[in-house]
């Protein structure tokens, strides 16, 4: 992209731009909450890998983590926070801008 490009690389949110984190945010954007194991299966990550990515999202304030016991078994529920929804919306906006910029430079 040139300097006059409408697309700004720096505007992409690094916290959610990783593939697994993006998958997590995309899935959580469509539900009000999800179980840890449900997310793990959806994004195809290991428990440890997903935990590390969730910690980054939680530290950024994008995901809330609720740990409880159900039938004496530990259960972790995750949900997108308002800040997370805003970041997801901004990421989609950036991707749209990238596509538009790519379309403008190729024409």
């Amino acid at each position, binding site marked *: 992209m040139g300097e006059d490009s409408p697309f700004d690389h720096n505007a992409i949110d690094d916290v959610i731009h990783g593939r697994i984190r993006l998958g997590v945010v*995309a*899935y959580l954007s469509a*539900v009000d909450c999800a179980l840890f*194991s449900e997310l793990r299966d*959806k*994004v195809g990550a290991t428990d440890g890998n997903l935990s590390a990515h969730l910690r980054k999202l939680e530290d950024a304030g994008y995901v809330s983590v609720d740990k409880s016991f159900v039938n004496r078994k530990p*259960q972790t529920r995750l949900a997108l926070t308002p800040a997370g929804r805003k970041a997801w919306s901004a990421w989609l906006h950036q991707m749209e801008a990238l596509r538009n910029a790519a379309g403008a430079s190729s024409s």
Partner: protein
Amino acid sequence: MTQASQTPADDLAYVRRLAESGARAPLIGGRFMAWWGFILTIAYVAHYFALKGMIGDGSGSIFGIIWIGFSVAGVGGQILLARGMPPKAGEGSAGNRASRSAWTAAACAIGSMVIGCIIAARTGAGPATFDWIVPVAFSVYACALIVTGALSGDRIIVAAGGGAVAMVGLFTALILHSDRYLLAAGGVAATVLLPGLLLLSREPRTQD
């Protein structure tokens, strides 16, 4: 994010697929539909037998026994099923949230009509008032089935809702017919029991 072998279009397809899988998660209330559909089918068949004089002593108390038994068994089974239900993937989807709200509202509406009919029957309206519970019940089943089926993208549940819509008119048209409760039993089996069993068979595995 994009890896060497992937294009931005692949990335967008990936996030779209994940978002859609959340939005279109399978419905997980099949066990409750199957349970209520099962006992309601039995109750309607028993009511039909009572109307025909095949069960009961002819005093009318058999109807009370049937429907009080139905209520106690239904609520008891509901509590047991809810307590024993493990966490399921997709329970936070729009379809499953709508399903819980819609069926709760449906149960409340039917309960309200039952109370109203009991009061009306005690103040001289006669037992025929109770027959109108059936088309009202099919109306609320139709709403619950069509809304949850549409939100979860499940065409069979939407079709079951269409069947419930048809049952409203059919039962009303035949409300003076002696076989009307046999018709109601068939309608409940087709629109609640069988779709419930289908949902149960397609439920995602238990999550830990």
